[in-house]
């Protein structure tokens, strides 16, 4: 066996054998291409059976669907995509903002003061077990179907995980680091914000990044149920009309948004916590 063939064999069969960056990109791109090819084949196949099918639209039909979302509506002059983006992302921003703020206050308090830990931990553990989608009925009743309701659902969904991430991160800090800070003349406030907080910041950013997905799930679910604008509403409405050429691009926008947020959060982490990215803990 030649060296090249042997290396290829090792890469294919060996456990976690490293591959080059170029190869990683090539394999990653080919997986997306394969998906597109499969979809194309499926669509062509379906249209041979039923030429008016809209459940697996052709690329041409998909283009029409995208244009429809971007075009100004005849009656109102509004564009769906702008309306939906504004509605969904303002709700997401509002909900995540409230969620992160409350989780930060709760997690920090529980990690710093034992009495806060004793008070909030049982409540938090209890609420963490209730699926946020099951709480929708409560929030519809309490807040109606306006912005506050969406914010409450997202916040309710992300607070337990985020607060516990912060709390557990603080609990993990070696006591000697805190004792040493005291011998260096740090006040309690300085220990909390200059010693403890920077150590959990990268984990907090990771947790926020991972919570964007669940937050989107809660939001889209609520929009599907009671929304009159937004991604969830549009997907529900258009799927009922079997306009999948609008639905699939909307799903792609959501995927792109998620990818963008992920990359953005990783960039923030690299900027704020270079030590963590380099492998420190």
């Amino acid at each position: 066996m030649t060296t090249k063939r042997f290396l290829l064999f090792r890469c294919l069969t060996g456990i976690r054998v490293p591959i080059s960056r170029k190869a990683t990109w090539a394999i990653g791109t080919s997986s997306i291409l394969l998906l597109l090819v499969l979809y194309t084949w499926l669509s062509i196949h379906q249209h041979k059976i039923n030429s008016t099918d809209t459940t697996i639209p052709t690329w041409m039909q998909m283009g029409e669907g995208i244009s429809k979302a971007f075009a100004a509506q005849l009656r109102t002059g509004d564009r769906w995509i702008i309306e939906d983006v504004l509605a969904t992302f303002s709700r997401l921003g509002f909900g995540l903002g409230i969620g992160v703020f409350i989780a930060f206050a709760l997690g920090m308090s529980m990690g710093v003061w034992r009495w806060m830990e004793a008070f909030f931990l049982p409540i938090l553990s209890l609420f963490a077990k209730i699926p946020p989608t099951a709480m929708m009925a409560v929030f519809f009743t309490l807040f109606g179907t306006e912005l506050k309701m969406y914010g409450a659902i997202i916040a309710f969904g992300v607070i337990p995980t985020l607060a516990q991430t912060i709390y557990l991160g603080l609990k993990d800090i070696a006591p000697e680091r805190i004792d040493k800070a005291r011998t260096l003349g740090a006040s309690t406030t300085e220990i909390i914000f200059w010693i403890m907080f920077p150590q959990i910041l990268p984990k907090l950013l990771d947790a926020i990044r991972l919570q964007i997905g669940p937050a989107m799930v809660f939001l889209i679910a609520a929009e599907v149920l009671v929304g009159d604008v937004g991604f969830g509403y549009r997907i529900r409405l258009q799927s009922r009309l079997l306009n999948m050429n609008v639905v699939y691009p909307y799903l792609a926008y959501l995927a792109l948004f998620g990818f963008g947020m992920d990359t953005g959060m990783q960039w923030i982490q690299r900027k704020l916590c270079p030590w963590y990215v380099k492998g420190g803990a």
Partner: protein
Amino acid sequence: MKLILGVSNASFQVGDQHILHGVDFKIGRGQIVGVLGASGCGKTSLLNLIAGITRPTSGIVSVNYDGQEEIEVKEPGPDRGIVYQAYGLYPFLTSLENVALGPKLHLTTIPRRMWGRVTGSWRRMRREHLKHAEELLVRFGLGDAVRKYPHELSGGMRQRVAIAQALIMHPQILLLDEPFGALDEATREDLQRMLLVLYEENIQAVGQGKPAPHTILLVTHAISEAIFVGDRVMGLSRYWNWEEQGFSSCPGATVVYDKVAPVFKPTDSADFEKFSGQKNEIARLVFGGNVNVRPQDHCTFWSQVHANHGHGVTRDA
């Protein structure tokens, strides 16, 4: 020699667990005291009492820096620096920032820093801190590592940074809690010699009639290290004659050994033959575990000093 630290009849227990009992000693300015003891005998607890991280159940820990007023230790402070075996460095700060952290926290407050950012005074002050920190790191042979994070350094380098971090505060007393325990033999000896350099600075200062700048308590379980680095060796043990004193169970570890140790220069070779007698004595009394040691028989440091058997800064006490 002026006394700088006094531990008077201090006992310490956690719940039902008796850790220290009747610990009583005084330390003079400029001494390096090796504190020995078996694992779990309360060495770190003693260091925590002195640092003010915990309070004794009974007894007093006091410091006396100006030779006049004794101050009871009630909480940690920048006058007592501490270095741990696990380094205790902050992973989010570079070596330089780790060392310059103390001056930032001790010499300024949050409002002052915030106002200083507006007026520009904070930047000037910070520049001074960083300059001083860099000088210290260069002195400790870490000139190339100032911008590196702790996880990018070797164990020996991290421990040097940790010592520099404590020393930048000019602590009156430096507490070292098994600082070289996790290091290889060569690095360990290298750092031991670094402490001997500090001791030499003490001897020079005393020779010039100035107060010795470094008083160090080195907690270790390595007998050779305590004797090589210290001018005095103390031993803590749970095996002492507590039954004769009327206790039905061990009331905690106490100081069972306290004697002068030979003083070495940083350039001297670590000739262990020179102190094999003392080493065997310590091994038997402090680590023996099967003898009812009478502490008063082996805690003779001050009588040795008064009989002019002291070395280094204790010679002229």
